[in-house]
């Protein structure tokens, strides 16, 4: 009987720890994706500033690592992603909606403006990660233990 109780406690603790871990992983994934977008923006700026290639090629090359970016009929969006917040998605989608319609100087200004905003998002995501990830993981384990003890 004791073995089953111990097993139950372990299962509840592990499940709760997994939930805490998944929640913190989501925050980490968000931070990584925003960082990828920020890096890609710098590369895109260089492509457009040099003016040597078409937009589709420039975006494909710059955003190679951003596999969460969907392309449909030449339009880019990240609506399907689960880790980015609605605000993150709106910012990225708006950027892609307007790109490629102006002269080089305006495009470069637009990319710089977007880069500043995404950098700010990255800083927020970084802070979130630092503050909340460990909390979620620890909370997950502790909550699991407490629930297990209470139930058992």
């Amino acid at each position, binding site marked *: 009987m004791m073995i089953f109780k111990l097993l139950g406690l372990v299962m509840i603790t592990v499940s709760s720890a997994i939930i805490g871990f998944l929640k913190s992983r989501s925050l980490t994934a968000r931070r990584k994706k925003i960082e990828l977008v920020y890096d890609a923006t710098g590369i895109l700026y260089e492509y*457009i500033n040099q*003016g040597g*290639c*078409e*937009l589709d090629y*420039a975006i494909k090359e710059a955003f190679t690592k951003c596999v969460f970016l969907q392309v449909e009929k*030449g339009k880019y969006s990240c609506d399907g992603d689960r880790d980015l917040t609605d605000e993150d998605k709106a910012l990225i989608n708006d950027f892609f909606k307007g790109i*490629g319609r*102006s*002269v080089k100087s305006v495009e470069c200004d637009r990319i710089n403006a977007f880069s500043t905003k995404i950098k700010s998002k990255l800083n927020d995501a970084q802070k979130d990660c630092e503050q909340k990830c460990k909390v979620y993981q620890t909370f997950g384990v502790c909550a699991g233990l407490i629930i297990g003890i209470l139930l058992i």
Partner: protein
Amino acid sequence: MTFDDMTLQIADNLKRKLLFIPDNIKQNCEEIRLRTGLPVCLTVGGKTLFVYSDSSVCDIYSPDALIASKDDLKETLALLCKHSVYLHENEMRQGFISLPNGCRAGVCGEFNAEGMLTSVTSINIRIARQIFNCAKPLLPFSKRGLLIAGPPGSGKTTVLRDLVRLLSNDDGGEYYRVAVIDSRGEISGRGTLDLGVNTDVLRTEDKATGVEIALRTMYPQFIVFDEIGTLRELQSVSQCFNAGVNIITTAHAHSKCDLKRREIIQKMISHNVVSYVALLPENIGENPIVISAGDLKKYDDF
């Protein structure tokens, strides 16, 4: 490039109607004209035809013609530029966008103080065609400088392109070294059109400098470019003549009188830079009239 290929770069709204117009119209269509708030027009055999919502065409306008909206023009411009307006910035300042296969879209609308087009109200898409051997009658006259003159739409660039191909490909008696100064990408179609096996293409907006570079670096036997128009270009061309390189170029002119009125052409002929002038007729299919520079000089005290 076929008519259907060109419609892929037009707004969806209009493309759906244009795809179903009669085949004989498509095959002979020279231009597609879009204007904000006005009917979609095609130029076929020099004539203007209006497109209707049921994809029929007629040479008479009526209020139920297919109208291009501001959004249609915006979308068409984005498609023509492949969503990369920044790549065509310099061209748009001059009012055109060069397209693949030698085609060209003229754009006009509102220009800002920096000379940049801020809103487009008209787009004229010219469909280029490569007509093989159309320049064969002019081959014998091309070996000592040739000016191809004609009214707009008479096929000067088409004939010029074919002449380059024939000279480069041994049809002129040997594989001549031909250098093409292609300022708008129309002659070479940015590498998509056949210019022969012995042709060098120099893409630069400044034709005069292009001629000088080609002369210095490519050791050509022929230098070819479209539309001579400035004194600087004439000076470069004179350098070629002095270096023993033959020049083939084009100019706008409706008649011998027109040739006489153009200062650049007068100077080219009086300095013997070209030995012949080929005057293309307005109707494509008729033979060009070839006049020697000597005869032109005698014409009304040229």
